[in-house]
């Protein structure tokens, strides 16, 4: 049972069948999935969700597949929790973390998009999947392809963090390390996708793939008790997640599950690669490409595919953007770990650091609900933390060695008896 009507150009509105199309052949505009929202509204109620599995597929009616889901059956529905200690530190009253750093199985929000993309790729008859990736997507495509028994090629920039390379290689795909930036990888995949009959999840089946990101927004609304937060800070690479969170809230409202959402969206980027943040701050609809130079490699997209739409979504919501330095990113990672016990990757550091600046500037008010989007896991990006954390205290296995090595710290400690 599917509620997908077809595909539609976001620019000129031309309609296309639900096939492998990712760009309007007339105006080159972006292609989007079009649903029969009236029919969905008749089917879905808040009560229906009580008995559904705790995975991203609980929102199946709003996802672009025809049959039953065949990938990512345990993905999604990640933790959402109130961050009291971090709120105290930042001086705000109501702060939440949506934590995809523990997404099953590859520890980033890319499990969502890939679950949808691979289910759809199989429906379309592909036996090989591929992607252009800054790391997390390659991990997710490799893992889900292994489980689905699909052939797999992942293309990454050659200078990725070792954790992200290993976390693809373990599933035994073909990993292609391209000498260049992500933008070079992406352009290459665009050209390869015209030559090889493969499903490049974020290129030629992107309209389906990108819909998976909506589930991150659906979950925030549901886990917040069927309401949208007042403010939501979102990391931006291609800009797709921002546009899909906006779409998620709009869809829930359209089918009657959510009051009209007033959420203001904020784009978080690294100063060394902030084309979307720059466009937002100039209130311009022209996203100028940049050459990335940042430790936040998962966000290092200089020519973002959805930059234009992300910029529009943020400005229309009344939100804003902030770009942060490499030092601020590391401080953000440490602050989240020290206050909330969550070890996020550099992108999460970007989100937290940007939120902190926006709060300090008074752009985000201190007394309204705020959600921080944590989308990846710190175990994959350990390099920037080398020499920036405390060190383990090395001792002999004796009480004497312990006490002499930690003499300073133990000065005020009490002992038993």
């Amino acid at each position: 049972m599917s509620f997908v009507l077809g595909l539609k150009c976001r620019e000129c509105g031309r309609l296309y069948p639900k096939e492998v199309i990712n760009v309007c052949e007339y105006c080159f505009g972006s292609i989007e999935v079009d649903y029969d929202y009236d029919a969905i509204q008749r089917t879905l109620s808040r009560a229906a969700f009580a008995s559904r599995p705790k995975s991203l597929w609980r929102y199946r009616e709003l996802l672009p597949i025809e049959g039953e889901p065949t990938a990512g059956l345990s993905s999604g529905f990640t933790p959402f929790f109130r961050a009291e200690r971090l709120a105290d530190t930042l001086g705000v009253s109501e702060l939440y973390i949506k934590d995809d750093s523990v997404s099953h199985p590859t520890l980033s929000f890319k499990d969502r998009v890939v679950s949808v993309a691979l289910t759809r790729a199989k429906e379309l008859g592909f036996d090989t999947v591929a992607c252009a990736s800054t790391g997390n997507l390659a991990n997710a495509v490799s893992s889900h392809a292994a489980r689905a028994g699909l052939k797999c090629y992942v293309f990454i920039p050659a200078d990725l963090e070792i954790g992200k390379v290993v976390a693809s290689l373990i599933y035994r795909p073909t990993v292609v390390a391209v000498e260049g930036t992500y933008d070079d990888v992406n352009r290459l995949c665009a050209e390869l996708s015209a030559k090889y009959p493969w499903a490049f999840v974020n290129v030629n089946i992107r309209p389906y793939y990108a819909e998976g990101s909506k589930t991150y927004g659906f979950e925030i609304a549901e886990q917040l008790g069927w309401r949208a937060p007042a403010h939501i800070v979102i990391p931006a690479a291609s800009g797709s997640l921002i546009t899909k969170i906006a779409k998620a809230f709009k869809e829930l409202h359209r089918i009657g599950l959510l009051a009209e959402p007033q959420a203001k969206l904020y784009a978080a980027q690294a100063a060394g690669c902030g084309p979307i943040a720059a466009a937002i701050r100039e209130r311009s609809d022209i996203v100028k490409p940049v050459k990335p130079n940042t430790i936040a490699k998962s966000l290092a997209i200089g020519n973002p595919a959805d930059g234009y739409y992300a910029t529009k979504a943020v400005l229309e919501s009344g939100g804003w953007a902030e770009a942060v330095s490499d030092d601020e990113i590391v401080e953000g990672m440490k602050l989240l770990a020290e206050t909330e016990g969550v070890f996020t990757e550099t992108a999460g550091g970007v989100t937290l650091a940007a939120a902190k600046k926006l709060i300090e500037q008074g752009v985000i008010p201190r007394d309204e609900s705020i959600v921080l989007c944590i989308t990846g896991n710190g175990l994959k990006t350990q390099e920037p933390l080398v020499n920036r954390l405390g060190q383990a205290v090395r001792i002999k296995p004796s009480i004497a060695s312990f006490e002499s090595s930690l003499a300073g710290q133990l000065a005020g400690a009490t002992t038993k008896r």
Partner: protein
Amino acid sequence: MAVTVRIPTPLQRLTNGQGEVACDGKTVAELLGDLERRYPGIKERICDQQGKLRRFVNVFVNEEDIRFLQGDQTAVKDGDDVSIIPAIAGGAWPVRPISDTLRVFGCQKSDVSSQMYSDR
């Protein structure tokens, strides 16, 4: 000798199905003018009414985005490779499973497979 221009699939209907064509010109702008002379109607698909590249089209000269060079005034010379690529997702054009392609276009396998999968 001339400049090789790679044509995205949606525009190949205007180039008689060719994925690569040869054009002449000293700049990208001149190249697009020559492309239009050879394949009338193609330029309006790539450029807006003011003659500027459309928002969702990217042009690369020897793998470099011309927005990092001199835009449409970027110099080109014989032997250069120029790619015209839809901007969305670096956006390529469809590779469909052949069965779907046949259904959508209602044509024979030999007609489409050479075009869809031809070596570019």
